[in-house]
């Protein structure tokens, strides 16, 4: 089943005035794999992720998810279908505790929220799954901490916990390591490695060590265009990639 395609992007185009930020991007993500997107600054990685999540409408092309054309769907509708994203800039709910944050994410997948009377913080149906997910990402000890009291790295782990809590079929991770120290970054890499195989991920990341350690396949984005897609070994060996991005020296 490893070859089953979950996300399929076909000739996606996004223009901002005269700038083509996404230029006929065609790529696919297979179920269970980690597909990394790399590219120099300004290559249009974040723009691409925003279109996949539904926050930005493309000018052309289609995005199919699990065999269904989701191009016209907006972000909340795509989230309900199972596309979850984490943000480059941590965007959890700062006034809440870690558990509140994840419980809210669980709630998002548990029918409508027009329930006006019962205290949500007392609902085992929300709190228990949220606790389990916090444990899975290694935040078991920080369950009741206010987000504002969490370290930067812990907030990123929480960010991923929230994405997981929506029971996604595809995780869009936008630079999860950004702004992290070496130790924090290693911890998060271990977490992602643990999730590998269980979750399907599209990973946008600057840190090459992380990408080559985790990814099953890599697509290289330069000036909005995919110049190569392949396994880490193939990408390392690709002449065009070396010239355009990795530099001629080391990879």
């Amino acid at each position, binding site marked *: 089943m490893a070859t089953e395609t979950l996300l399929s992007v076909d000739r996606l185009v996004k223009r901002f005035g005269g700038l083509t930020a996404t230029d006929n991007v065609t790529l696919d993500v297979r179920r269970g794999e980690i597909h990394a997107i790399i590219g120099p600054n300004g290559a249009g990685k974040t723009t691409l992720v925003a279109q996949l*999540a539904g*926050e930005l409408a493309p000018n052309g092309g289609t995005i199919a998810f699990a065999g269904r054309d989701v191009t016209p769907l*907006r*972000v*909340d509708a795509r*989230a*309900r279908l199972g596309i*979850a*994203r984490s*943000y480059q800039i941590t*965007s*959890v*709910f*700062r*006034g*809440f505790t870690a558990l*509140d944050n994840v*419980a*809210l*994410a669980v*709630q*998002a*997948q548990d029918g409508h*929220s*027009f*329930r*006006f*009377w*019962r*205290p*949500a*913080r007392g*609902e085992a149906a*929300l709190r228990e799954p949220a606790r389990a997910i916090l444990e899975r990402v290694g935040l078991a000890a920080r369950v009741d901490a*206010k987000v*504002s009291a969490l370290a930067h790295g812990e907030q990123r782990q929480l960010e991923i916990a*929230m994405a997981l809590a*929506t029971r996604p079929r595809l995780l869009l991770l936008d630079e999860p390591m950004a702004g992290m120290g070496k130790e924090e970054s290693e911890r998060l890499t271990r977490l992602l490695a643990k999730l590998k195989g269980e979750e399907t991920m599209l990973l946008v990341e600057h840190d090459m060590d992380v990408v080559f350690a985790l990814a099953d396949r890599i697509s290289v984005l330069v000036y909005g265009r995919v110049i190569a897609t392949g396994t880490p070994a193939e990408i390392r060996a690709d002449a065009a990639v070396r010239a355009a991005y990795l530099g001629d020296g080391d990879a």
Partner: protein
Amino acid sequence: MNADRRTWFVIVLLALLAALPLVAVATGQDYQIGQFRRILIFAIAAVSLDLILGYGGMVCFGHAAFFGIGAYVVAILNWHAGREVPLVGDWMGTNNVLVTWPAAILVSGGIAALIALISLRTTGIYFIMITLAFAQMIYFFFVSLRAYGGDDGLRFDGDTVAFGLIDTQDDMAFYYLVFAVLCAVLYGGRRLVNSRFGMVVQGCRENERRMKALGFPTTRYKLAAFAIAGATAGLAGALFAAHESYISPSIMHWTRSGDLIVMVVLGGMGTLVGPVVGALAFLFLEKTLPDYTEHWMVVFGPILLLLVLFARRGIFGWFGPKDDGGGNGH
């Protein structure tokens, strides 16, 4: 913990409010009861505004309009009943609060929902401006509504009997009715903000973009919160109409909407009980300062400024934990 201090604060506050008319009678100041009742009515309106302002992060600058609509619904129904002028077909209106108050709640809630439908397409300063614009439209609608007094307002027979047992002409009995409504609104509000719905509304305040990414269709929840707040303000307006037996467009003037915002901020946003304290403090100062100087605004302004600067979370904030910036108190 500090949560206990807050609980005690609420208990003491409500006990004081319950004892207030008895103290007034004991000290021969019965005439003050009506004044206290008016404060409680505005407190209900302020609490309703806190639901969207404090918990939803929606700065509505037109909340007095919903208050006014509720008041006008009651006033118009009562006026028809008193004059025996048909309102619709041969129906003469009514002064039965079992009809007039729910009508006030439904009409103001419905209009709030319609206004939210359009206003929620905007955020930030535009949201403030558009709610203000709608409120001004409603204000001028009633100013030009000659059939019901227009600018001069509408006086009506106020012999409203609530639920067949409470005479709203009886100062004391009506005070306790308003007090009971306030307690019910506070309790209902507390349940609401801690429910699943309340968590979603607070999530939208904290980070709406993230809420959408989690899969919440945020607009419909914000719209519902806005309608609930508008309906509750309408209920306060209905009580106000019964309290005054007279109504004029001036109660929905934009400065009244500003007053409500000040009450909420002064007492403490996102606390529900805070706005009650804010309404007490605001209306007390507004009433007493003019006794000392006709330039009382010069004193009132700086007091507000100092409170907002040094008590960021309002008067009620003094009684809570000092560290957090979120409004998810229990």
